[in-house]
């Protein structure tokens, strides 16, 4: 049994299956006919901790052997991949033709494309490059029964039938198992670099990001991290309350023009400091920021906030104030223009009078007050019992989501009890 197939400390009752291609994947699913058996599709297992606590499961369906780039039509800026290919492997192959997939989830040497899509993994490139679901132009999916289906195709514009792939991005493998994906690709920018600005207040960080948002600068990524995360990641910059990292790219003159705009904007901010890192020097920094979820102990907590840029501003302030009130700290990674934020809480101080469950409840309250949503991605296993990690979805949507789940996987063979549709099974 592979360690990576342990979910909340539970191993599969019947064992692990390693399909090599779509046919074997289809056979594996169709062969499991006994009612009640639970199958968990697994890619690189980098985000397997997400979801309600699994009561038990029977088969680990490990897709990591389905790891090929099936076609790269570089002249057409498209490719087709098997879902088990790692991000790292894919990007390396695309790079040979000076192209890339604008998806930058954490732990790329291990994270698979299928898992990244199914778990709607966050990434910093969304600031300009849009959501990863917008890169998907076609998808092959194997249903719980073993039936192989497809939608879309290897062209960049298509309205032929329902866009079924939309349901599987963020569907956590509960409607079917992604087996192949067609993507549209992006040319690598001719030049890249990162502009770093250190700020002494959260207000300055937010004001600056709004200015960038309102300017002609078009960052590939724009991310702010707080002092706690700067220290955790051991980033060597002058002391700052917040560090903003702005990745820009383009042709030489456009690159320099964007730098000039940023430099002029930052002049207005007292006590700020700046730095410019060439691509080779900035890549390790982005890797640290990208992979910060890997830090901390088993008892750490990671949450993800979905909001609008304006609401996120007040939400961040409220959360920071709350942690000051309780005499604790949290690490923050925020994408201000995109309206998303992740936070990371390691152990609360031992002298804290506030229990972790109270902290989580209060963060939920703050999110609600700011009309935002929280999805907890990592919680200690003992916290998961009876706790809704998924946050709130309106009743109308939830009704349709449950109907979809019942329609496509009536026996709840896939990932039973873990997704927000399966609350009654928790």
């Amino acid at each position, binding site marked *: 049994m592979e360690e990576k197939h342990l979910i909340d400390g539970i191993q599969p009752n019947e064992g692990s299956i390693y399909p090599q291609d779509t046919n074997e994947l289809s056979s594996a699913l169709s062969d499991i006919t006994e009612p009640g058996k639970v199958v968990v599709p697994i890619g690189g297992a980098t985000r397997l901790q997400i979801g309600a606590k699994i009561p038990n499961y029977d088969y680990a369906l490990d897709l990591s052997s389905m790891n090929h780039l099936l076609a790269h039509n*570089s002249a*057409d800026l498209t490719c087709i991949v098997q879902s088990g290919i790692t991000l790292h492997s894919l990007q390396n192959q695309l790079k040979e033709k000076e192209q890339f997939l604008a998806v930058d989830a954490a732990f790329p040497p291990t994270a698979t494309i299928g898992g990244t899509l199914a778990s709607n993994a966050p990434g910093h490139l969304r600031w300009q490059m*849009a959501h990863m679901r917008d890169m998907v132009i076609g998808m092959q999916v194997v249903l719980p029964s073993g039936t192989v289906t497809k939608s879309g*195709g290897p062209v*960049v514009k298509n*309205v032929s039938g329902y866009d079924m792939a939309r349901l599987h991005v963020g569907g956590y493998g509960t409607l079917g198992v992604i087996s192949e994906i067609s993507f549209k690709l992006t040319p690598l920018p001719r030049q890249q670099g990162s502009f770093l600005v250190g700020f002494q207040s959260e207000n300055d960080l937010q004001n600056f990001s709004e200015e960038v948002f309102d300017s002609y600068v078009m960052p590939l990524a724009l991310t702010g991290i707080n002092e706690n995360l700067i220290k955790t990641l051991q980033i060597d910059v002058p002391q700052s309350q917040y560090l903003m990292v702005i990745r820009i790219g383009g042709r030489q003159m456009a690159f320099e023009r964007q730098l000039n705009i940023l430099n002029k904007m930052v002049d207005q901010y007292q006590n700020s400091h700046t730095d410019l890192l060439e691509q080779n020097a900035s890549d390790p920094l982005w890797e640290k920021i990208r992979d910060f979820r890997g830090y901390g102990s088993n008892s750490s907590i990671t949450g993800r906030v979905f909001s609008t840029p304006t609401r996120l501003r007040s939400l961040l302030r409220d959360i920071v104030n709350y942690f000051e009130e309780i005499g604790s700290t949290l690490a923050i990674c925020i994408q201000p223009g995109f309206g998303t934020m992740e936070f990371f809480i390691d152990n609360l101080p031992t002298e804290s009078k506030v229990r972790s469950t109270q902290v989580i409840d209060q963060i939920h309250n703050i999110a609600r007050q700011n009309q935002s949503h929280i999805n907890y991605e990592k919680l200690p296993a003992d916290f998961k019992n009876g706790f809704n990690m998924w946050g709130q979805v309106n009743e109308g949507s939830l009704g349709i989501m449950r109907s979809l789940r019942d329609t496509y996987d009536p026996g709840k063979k896939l990932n039973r009890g873990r997704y*927000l549709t399966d609350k009654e099974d928790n």
Partner: protein
Amino acid sequence: MGKSQHLKIKDLIPELKRIAGDNYVLDDQADLLVYEYDGSIDRGNPVVVVLPDTTKEISQVLKLARSNSIPVVARGAGTGLSGGAIAEQGGIVLSMARMNQILEVNRSDRYAIVEPGVVNLDLSTHVASEGLYYAPDPSSQRACTIGGNIAENSGGPHCLAYGVTTNHVLGMEVVLADGTITWFGENERDGIGYDLRGITIGSEGTLAIVTKISVRLLRLPEHVKTMLMSFETIEDASAAVTGIIGAGMVPAALEMMDHFCIKAAEGAVGAGYPEGAGAVLLVELDGLLESVEEESEEIEAICREFSPLEIRVATDSLEREKLWSGRKGVLGALGRLAPNYYLVDGTIPRTKLVDVLKKINEISERSGYPIANLLHAGDGNLHPSILFDERKPGDVENILAIGAEILRICVDSGGVLSGEHGIGLEKQDQMPLMFSEEDMATMSLLKLAFETEDLLNPGKVFPTGAGCGDISQARAIARVGPGAYI
């Protein structure tokens, strides 16, 4: 539509009038004629048209329809080109014409909330003073509505760089078939759970009726450069497109028109296209001044490899608008060349442009029907327009067969049945060209997950039980009413 359905709906008219108001329920035959067609070849007569003003009214209409098993078809401006808004099974047409308000513009968060009947171009015009715009720009953007754009996941010339409708919708208020009012997504760019917003966009009004839409707004670019490149042959122009994309450049727009389109557009609007050319490319770049200038130099260099007859750059906004007026008005202008045209919509891999256009030309020569080629070339979206005269016996049958043949070529080339017009009635029987029985059965289940009684825009998207090809044509011909204008 059966007689009993007709009578049943007639009985409900007082209740519909109570919901929407006396003036907003139409059942006079003269009034209904306006709603029997859209921009496609198809026809269908609703029994009644309701023009609601609020989401609540729509909810009440749907509850009433459901309790009486009556189909409901939502309709925007009726500019669709695949029959999506046709009341194929009679029933109630819900016209969104009165729900045409821009409810909110949030500049800080760059979104607007609009009602479905808002005309596409009106939104960009409304927010222009804020330095913003709404990117999807179908050629019919002066008339088509954002609700209709959502139903068909519409594109447009500038979707090459900025994406189609689904890439610009954050969330939507919808009414489900049972009258439930809810939101799919909100104003955030990401969320939790299945992407109900995404699956509803492009579903041709078969899953839910959209009543409010939150759309992304983009900042107007600092600089725009529009270039017109003319070539001796369409093959040269196609090779230039392949060269541009292959070099890793994605302009804001990359459009192609052949000599038929050039002639028609020149005659209609005098856009300044060179009439002797075999094809023109309309290339638009936008963004930072420096970026636009650098990219335009590279694109010019690529195009020069294919011996262009002329490369012209619009020197001001007036000239730019003039160049675009030819492109956006070309479909209407085709009326100068023939009484009717049949517009085909398919997408192919961009590297197959030369091959596929050559095959289309061969079909034209073999059949004797001129085919005007208008392309969103940058994303491989073809719009071959077959010119004909419906008054000539056999022409309708022939051009439908040619359209089917062109779509088969697209699919055989690794492409798809529709790039931006949708399947609707027009192509439902050709779905098996692209999809297996299992694929279509899986898609059909989606409809069941949203509603079990198949009352929202029934009879669309999926084959009706017959195979493709000849039977499809026969059905299409049967639907064409006397004097149909395609």
